[in-house]
């Protein structure tokens, strides 16, 4: 009977209805999300090139040193800001918007708001990056964009925030999923963070070392309360989606979310241990950093138990492979971060390349890989075309994964040796440079691998937009997944 009804009216089939609903949502998201993704990938490539220039300057100090705009002290912040705002934030916004629409189960409304936002956002990044290179950098870490660029970003963000509120207001009734908690929190925290530092550090700068506290409260929370919740929202969506089973534990999700919100927000001062601040501020941040074990272990267990028994998915699903790499990196980078905040260890690693290795493990191995995974899932649904080449995805993955592991290893070892040299009163300062030097060459080499990965991804994305290759009836995977019945009998 049901088959008869279904054959007469396909829409009466619930699964088909769901499919129609999803494709309507995806169609509404196409333009804004692709705009954020496309520009993000552009900035990723630009940021990688800037990173290479900065990295090789540490190997060959005389490299390109005749022009002011190419000096290390400008190229380095230009790299950081293009990848943080141009790439990671824009990619995160794109993923966040799409997840929000899918989870609210309504087609995107007022997408023109988002298109204006994307244009303004990129204008802000463009003006800001040129400003840094031209010599208008604020020299406030993670906030180098000059005062004429940051308001453009803020306006762009305001459009996104307003849109998010409208979207959530008109969601379909039902359960609010864990990814939505993280997204809502991130979308509410970011404007608060950004507005605070714009007022207190750029428009009406407060005095002296208080700036340092506000600076690192901001910089650390951009990672902890902006990128991390978006990355986790994506993991909480993609892992169950790809392997086709629900999240292991609802209660662990709750614990993970609230402990993250409480502890992460207090972490910032661990960047300034020994700095000119009252001891209690530093102590509070050290304690909060160690307490980060709670949300991190909780989320790690929850994701691991969800994936358990389905790890073969890593063999065939690009999305799952990138996402699981990101999720595992999140656990590692957070453990490392907690340990680095302990003053005994911090006095060695503070002020060294070790910290740079740590931040790349966070922003790249965790967040960026998570965004790659999400993009491999989302883009085909937006444009109705599958990725043209599985081997390009494979190259992208391995270059990025091996590249970031080499980079992390090199900066970690180099940083520890540098730190020990800086720590020992008997050792001359110059030795800290000699000892770190070979490791900085390895780091530059790993940067070449990452840049190659990004160029491959960018080319593949353009091929995708141009609908290159033959039309495929099914997703582009690394291998054919083994159907469940076969695995059971095998």
């Amino acid at each position, binding site marked *: 009977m049901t088959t008869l009804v279904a054959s007469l009216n396909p829409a009466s089939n619930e699964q088909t209805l769901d499919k129609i609903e999803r494709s309507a949502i995806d169609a509404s998201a196409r333009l804004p999300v692709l705009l954020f993704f496309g520009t993000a990938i552009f900035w990723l490539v630009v940021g990688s090139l800037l990173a290479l220039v900065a990295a090789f300057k540490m190997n060959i100090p005389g490299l390109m040193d005749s022009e002011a705009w190419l*000096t290390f*002290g400008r190229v380095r912040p230009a790299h950081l800001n293009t990848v943080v705002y141009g790439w990671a934030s824009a990619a995160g916004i794109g993923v966040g918007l799409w997840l929000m629409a899918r989870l609210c189960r309504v087609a995107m409304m007022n997408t023109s708001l988002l298109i204006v936002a994307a244009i303004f956002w990129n204008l802000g990044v463009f003006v800001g990056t040129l400003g840094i290179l031209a010599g208008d950098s604020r020299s406030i870490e993670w906030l180098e964009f000059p005062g004429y660029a940051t308001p453009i970003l803020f306006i762009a963000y305001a459009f996104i925030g307003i849109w998010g509120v409208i979207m959530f207001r008109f969601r379909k009734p039902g359960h609010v999923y864990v990814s939505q908690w993280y997204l809502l929190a991130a979308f509410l925290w970011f404007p608060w963070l950004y507005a605070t530092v714009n007022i207190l550090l750029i428009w009406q700068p407060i005095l*002296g070392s*208080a700036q340092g506290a506000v600076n690192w409260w901001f910089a650390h929370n951009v990672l902890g309360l902006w990128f991390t919740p978006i990355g986790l929202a994506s993991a909480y969506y993609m892992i169950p989606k790809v392997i086709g089973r629900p999240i292991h534990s609802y209660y662990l999700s*709750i614990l993970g979310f609230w402990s993250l*919100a409480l502890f992460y*927000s207090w972490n*910032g001062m661990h960047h300034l241990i020994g700095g000119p*601040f009252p001891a209690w501020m530093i102590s509070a941040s050290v304690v909060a950093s160690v307490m980060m074990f709670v949300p991190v272990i909780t989320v790690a267990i929850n994701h691991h138990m969800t994936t358990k028994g389905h790890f073969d998915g890593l063999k065939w699903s690009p999305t799952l492979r990138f996402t699981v790499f990101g999720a595992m990196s999140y656990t590692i980078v957070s453990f490392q971060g907690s340990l680095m905040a302990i003053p005994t260890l911090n006095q060695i690693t503070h002020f060294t390349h070790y910290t740079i290795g740590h931040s790349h493990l966070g922003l790249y191995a965790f967040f960026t890989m998570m965004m790659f995974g999400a993009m491999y899932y989302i883009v085909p649904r937006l444009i109705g075309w599958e990725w043209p080449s599985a081997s390009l995805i494979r190259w992208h993955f391995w270059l990025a994964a091996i590249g970031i592991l080499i980079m992390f290893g090199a900066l970690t070892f180099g940083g520890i040796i540098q730190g020990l040299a800086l720590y020992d009163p008997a050792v001359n300062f110059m030795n800290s440079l000699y000892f770190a030097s070979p490791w900085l060459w390895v780091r530059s080499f790993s940067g070449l691998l990452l840049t190659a990965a990004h160029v491959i991804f960018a080319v593949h994305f353009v091929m995708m937009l141009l609908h290159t290759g033959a039309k495929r009836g099914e997703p582009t995977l690394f291998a054919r997944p083994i159907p469940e019945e076969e695995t059971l009998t095998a």
Partner: protein
Amino acid sequence: MNRLPLLFLGIFLTFASAWAGLVAYPYLALGRLLPITSEETGELAPPPLSGLAEAGMAVYSANGCLYCHSQQVRPAYLSTDIAKGLGPRRTVARDYIRSKPAFLGTMRTGPDLTNVGLRYSAEWQHRHLYEPSEVSKGSIMPAFRYLYTMQKIQGAPSADALKDLTGPYAPKPGYEVVPTEDAKALVAYLLSLKRDYALPEAPEESLE
């Protein structure tokens, strides 16, 4: 989770707690510190900066010196900074009230500059900025030659021309290298970096 008011309240309160502790508190307590007047000499601590040094601060910021040079001396119980001779005492909040921005820094690819004004002369700073590796063997600091002008000597050599330059970028006979206004300002700022005044909240630390 469907208790949305609780969700929003929690999102607000967790964030507000850290905002109060790490933003509002330093704003109120550290952001309004004033210099103190020494009872013996009547001088201000920290001393005011010259106009040129203030301009130099902007050059320091524009060229991103802080990405390799920190300006903080940590206390003896947390580091070997004092044993390594970075300064006679830790730096405290009041040391930074004239610094815009604070330039605390998080890297020591280059040496800490808290007290660099006590260590080198203006002449040394200019030669070093012009070609670091000629003055400091093994240095990987980039050259800031773009802050200097190479020009033909017209009549008598300029008073502020750099002396004793060596290496491939030394001027040919009949030429001289003079600092731009930016270079002069930057060096004035570097020379002003000396925390050699006493502050009651940061006594000198003895090393046993």
